[in-house]
């Protein structure tokens, strides 16, 4: 009971704090908080906006899980950004070169993305295990190498031959055949709701993200590998003495993190059918925030991803209704992250103290002193 109270107090506290600070921010900008919150909520109540939010939350969530795998063993994979873009590009290119039955075609594309991203993340792992290079530095550098170097070059190499039909929107890799595109799941959604309007479609990756979340939970809590991973994160020396091979774990965690990162780009790929000249960027970094807010917990990160997505989508809403400036959403993302970190820190401390007291009670339970 007490434990539940502790785990609920932190997010609740963070929420209240965020609300207070953003209200102050809104007032400072001369907007009406009630109007702004009202617009955000009334739009979020619409089915179409909800589809938008889930479409946005899906890559956030995958990115968060990728980051969290590293975080759980104190490995800071800041390179999710570069990793998923690499996977995205290669998957698009490979997918456009083959023509296979649907299931197989999709499988080949996703496998390519995961393998390429995983290998790219593995580079940082190898640098760390063989040369002791800090993974934060190497992954940040690998991000630049990927985006500014490899991808910029390969985009040229793999540019589709457009012939006469040249237009800037037609740029990008060759289009993948219909069989390679993950179907949307509006059919499933509409079982529970009315028909989704405005041409909004829920990405099939939504289901895959849920599967990834479940797999992440099982891996961490139910497998020996997951235990080794967590143990290495908490106390690498104790883990090593307990038989966990430290170097192999670094490499494995890095590559696993990369493999999940590979799925991030699949949301956009399914939608656009190619690697566009202007892929959505920044998802890898957003995932770090989502993982932080969700405490690396599969359920917590799902909630955080949806919250971030809601704020993202709301910025568009505020823009169109004019209730407040769109930047307020970004500000709120920042505030919620900060307050969450503080609230969790405080709650953690309280919980630890509580536990120590309980244990002290147990210790002297049979040596109970009768007060004079």
């Amino acid at each position: 009971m007490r434990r539940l109270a502790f785990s609920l107090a932190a997010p609740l506290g963070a929420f209240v704090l965020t609300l207070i600070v953003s209200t102050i921010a809104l007032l400072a900008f001369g907007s009406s908080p009630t109007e702004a919150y009202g617009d955000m909520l009334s739009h979020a109540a619409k089915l179409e906006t909800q589809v938008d939010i889930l479409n946005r939350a899906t890559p956030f969530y995958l990115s968060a899980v990728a980051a969290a795998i590293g975080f759980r063993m104190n490995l800071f994979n800041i390179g999710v950004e570069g990793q998923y873009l690499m996977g995205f590009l290669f998957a698009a290119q490979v997918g456009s070169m083959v023509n296979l039955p649907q299931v197989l075609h999709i499988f080949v594309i996703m496998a390519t993305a995961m393998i390429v991203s995983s290998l790219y993340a593995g580079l940082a792992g190898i640098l760390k295990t063989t040369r002791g290079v800090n993974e934060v530095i190497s992954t940040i550098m690998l991000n630049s190498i990927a985006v500014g170097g490899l991808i910029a070059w390969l985009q040229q190499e793999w540019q589709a031959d457009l012939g006469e039909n040249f237009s800037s929107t037609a740029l990008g890799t060759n289009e993948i055949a219909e069989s390679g595109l993950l179907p949307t799941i509006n059919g499933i959604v509409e079982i529970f709701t009315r028909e989704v309007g405005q041409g909004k479609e829920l990405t099939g990756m939504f289901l895959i993200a849920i599967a990834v979340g479940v797999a992440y939970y099982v891996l961490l809590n139910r497998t020996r590998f997951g235990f080794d991973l967590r143990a290495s994160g908490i106390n690498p020396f104790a883990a090593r003495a307990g038989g966990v091979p430290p170097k192999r774990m670094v490499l494995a965690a890095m590559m696993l993190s990369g493999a999940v990162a590979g799925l991030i780009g699949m949301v956009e790929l399914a939608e656009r059918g190619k690697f566009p000249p202007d892929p959505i960027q920044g998802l890898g970094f957003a995932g770090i925030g989502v993982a932080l807010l969700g405490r690396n917990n599969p359920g917590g990160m799902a909630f955080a991803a949806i919250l971030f997505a809601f704020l993202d989508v709301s910025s568009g809403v505020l823009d169109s209704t004019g209730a407040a400036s769109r930047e307020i959403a970004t500000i709120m993302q920042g505030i919620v992250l900060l307050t969450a970190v503080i609230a969790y820190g405080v709650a953690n401390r309280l919980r630890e103290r509580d536990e120590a007291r309980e244990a002290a009670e147990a210790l002297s339970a049979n040596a109970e002193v009768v007060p004079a």
Partner: protein
Amino acid sequence: MAPAIELSGITKRFPGVVANDNINMTVEKGEIHAICGENGAGKSTLMKILYGMQPPDEGTMKVDGELVEFASPTDAIERGIGMVHQHFMLADQLTVLENIILGAEPVGTGGAIKFGDAEKHLARVAEDYGLTIDPNDMVESLEVGERQRVEIIKVLYRGAEILILDEPTAVLVPQEVEALFDNMRELKASGATILFIDHKLDEVLEISDSITVLRHGKTVASLPNDGVTAHDLAELMVGSELPTPETAESTVTDTVALRLSDITVANDDGRPVVNGVDLTIHQGEIVGIAGVEGNGQSEVVDAIIGTANVVGGSIEFLGRDITKESVRRRRESGIGYVPEDRHHEGLLLSSPLWENAALGHQTKSPYGSRWWLDPAGARAQTETIREQFDVRTPNIDVAAHALSGGNQQKLIIGRELTSNPEVLIAAHPTRGIDVGAQAAVWDDIRTARANGLATLLISADLDELIGLSDTIVVMLRGEFVATLSPDEVTPRDLGAYMTGAALQQQGAN
């Protein structure tokens, strides 16, 4: 003259437990006053009350004859009370001077720190109390004993005249303990009052002027250090007949469980720290390694566990060459390990007890398998350990850091022994735990020995070594310099071998 500290009727209750029960204690000015007691006897609570970290529920405190009430350590510091914690709180990347003034920087106009003033003040404090330290050394380059001195000076710098030292010798090697005691005598000579907590009774007897013994939150004795023996003190602490580490008849068999041949271990610089040692342990045998810390004992342990850089020789486990095997393979095939520092290598402090029990055994039933972890099996096994080894905890889901040192150690001993090892490597298995837990650990090791366990015991407690071992080897500068029978050797002899004195004598003869 009013006493430095006078506590009367101090009582502190936590829900369901009385940590301090009507404690009365008087510490005279300029004396060294030791506080002994088992873990959980209420020493830490009492110190926290004295240092203003917790208010007492009842009772009064007088400092220099004046009634005081502390709301926080700041109040205590203002009254001239300073505390040196067991775990140092220093920033490695700063110099000694910077560490000392941290939080109490003398600031000039424009916010600039007046380092010159600080250094002058520090020099005066150091001279007053006869403590030497180079203010410009980087803390990271200091030995443990020197770091402790920095902590002490830090407290003196802030004007403390009453020092509380929380288990100051726990982290020190014997030479450093001597240095610390010299410093303490200097401090006393300069008028400081010292209050210190210690487990090691010989140290208490050596340095203190008076001794207060706590048991179950009460003061059971407060006496001058005058004709008291370690045995007396220990009995006061435990309140019953003392357990002694004595093994019954020999259970040594002919089967070799572990054999090290010509093992050489190199440190990070490539220098040998263990130099061609041979060692054989039979089933049912306890082999003890005696030695001043830092003479290669830890590296021998690491070599057997598989975490050391073994550059020569071979290790045979039940007839199988395991020199090149991974740590996991060794642990799986039956090498149990009680590390010398349970926080460093033994526990996942923030994880629940059942996960800690699984650590090192997660690949085997009942904790798990090659691929899967078995939380239900692990929990059941942890409950077994909790019962069999008397681990006192509200439940097996609390984090390991919530347990006292003795209970953490019992958990570690329990997890290793219940996994039926063939060989147990026990490094300082009773370090820093109370007398009661100590006796329990000895019993557990003896029982396992009777069942055929081969044990390598490393300990700084010579009575423990002599009492438990079937054979004792002495390690000096990376080599085994003597093999002795515990029946014929006294702690005094052992000490002579450990420091090399006995060998020089033999050489002279």
